[in-house]
């Protein structure tokens, strides 16, 4: 009896560590997705379809683009753009719709907080899950790119971590925004911000298509930083700009994460 009370006391006194909590949440999401594996798998196909359609189909109409002084075929230009954009879209799904549903409708986070988990554990765990998912998709897409001969540098191996940074940045900020959403209709505003980024962040055509003033705005968007970073890695043309992109994306993700924790405190613990 004495032994039991001390172990219970010890467990209550020391809640799970950050690593354990993240692991638990990853395992929970794995269990939840196990029966809907086809949704998980089909998510990978979307950027591949875009690559084949735009890169190969439309690519036959375009001679190619100049990137960092070298002319590259259109498919090679578009592929890293699709990869970065799908990293954004992938993390968006988990951090907006799915997060909102868990927060508001099935009250999943309320239940988690009834255990030794903290709001920071939830924010970190949910973000880690969407990063894991995005990383798997990116790695698979990279294999497709290599098979199609669209990769010309060993730096491309770093593309998977680069897409994780994109996922971190968008996941963190979008989760933070989701905590302010009132209803499903509000998500139209997310689309209103992300769709122009998807279409105009030098994904489909080079930034030289814009007048200078617009160009500056585009260069400041997070997706543009991500697209250029991925393209620099797959073509092997790294620069100091790549470092700036990395710092930008990490900072954005961490700020988002801090806001999520504070907002969850406010929404669920008061």
């Amino acid at each position, binding site marked *: 009896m004495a032994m039991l009370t001390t172990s219970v006391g010890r467990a209550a006194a020391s809640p799970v560590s950050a690593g354990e909590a993240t692991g638990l949440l990853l395992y929970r999401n794995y269990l939840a997705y196990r029966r809907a594996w086809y949704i998980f798998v089909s998510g990978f*196909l*979307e950027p591949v379809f875009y690559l*084949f359609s735009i890169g190969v*189909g439309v690519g036959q109409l375009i001679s190619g683009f100049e990137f960092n002084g070298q002319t590259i075929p259109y498919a090679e230009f578009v592929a890293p753009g699709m990869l970065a954009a799908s990293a954004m879209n992938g993390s968006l799904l988990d951090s907006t719709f799915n997060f909102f549903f868990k927060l508001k409708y099935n009250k999943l986070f309320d239940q988690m907080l009834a255990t030794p988990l903290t709001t920071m554990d939830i924010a970190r765990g949910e973000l880690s899950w969407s990063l894991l998912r995005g990383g798997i998709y990116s790695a698979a897409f990279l294999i497709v790119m290599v098979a199609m001969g669209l990769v010309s540098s060993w730096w491309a191996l770093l593309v998977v971590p680069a897409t994780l940074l994109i996922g971190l940045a968008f996941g963190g900020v979008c989760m933070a925004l989701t905590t302010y959403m009132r209803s499903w209709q509000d998500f139209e505003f997310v689309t209103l911000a992300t769709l*122009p980024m998807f279409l105009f962040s030098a994904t*489909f055509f080079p930034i030289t298509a814009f007048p200078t003033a617009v160009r500056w705005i585009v260069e400041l968007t997070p997706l543009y930083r991500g697209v250029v970073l991925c393209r620099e890695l797959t073509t092997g043309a790294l620069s100091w700009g790549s470092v700036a992109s990395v710092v930008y994306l990490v900072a954005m993700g961490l700020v988002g994460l801090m806001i999520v924790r504070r907002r969850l405190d406010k929404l669920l613990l008061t």
Partner: protein
Amino acid sequence: MADSSTQVGPPTNVLAGAARLFDYWAIAYKRTWKGSAISSFVTPLLYILAMGVLLGGFIKGDPSKLEGATSYLSFVAPGMVAAQAMTTVFGEVTYPVMGMIKWHKTYFSMIATPLGVPEVILSHLAFVLFRVATTSAVFIAVMACFGVFSSVPGVIAAFFVQLLIGLAFATPLYAFSAGLKDESAFSLVFRLGMIPLFLFSGAFFPVSNLNAVMESLARVTPLWHGVDLTRMLTLGVVDWSMVAVHVAYLGVLALAGWLWAVRRLGRRMVL
């Protein structure tokens, strides 16, 4: 429709019955139209700007490579109009149909009146067609400002073609949704149905750019028939025998879908 509340007794035919349900759809849409505004109007315009104007600036306007179009913008615009008619239908005839049956059970209250399954389907499809008509009209009007259409009659004909495309997708998809027990299949319908159709049915590039197998596959999809029909009309390069093939294909699809939908929803709701 204002006098529908003063009518007494059961409606005399299916059309009159479906018209009575129009009030339901009008009131519901009056409350939710804002949410659909961004996806219906802003999305296609952004696509046109990005793909047609900006990406198109890098593409040589060679009519022999662009099915007769003199610029990529005038090639891609009709494709996008037709693709938009399709995506509108996918949005309206998947989750909403399941909602009416399974989640909100609105259909059950509808058929608890003298109205039957055909009336319920007809009025729902009329609403879907209304959505297709408004989004296509706005889209076509904006595209006209870019000067990509060759003649006024061609543009008007292209508008009515959008209704036919809408119907050809709406009835079979409706039938599919009406019998579905679980919504998780819809994400596959979007990812393996709508997106490949959107990307490979000749909206963005001539299907002859695909390899032989893929090309013949693309040519049997309903969206390709719709895209080709719309493009012929807006460019003014009309091959009437192909028009007949396209119209017949889409018409048969719409009719077969309708018969299937009545059967499938009837089994679900009545038996």
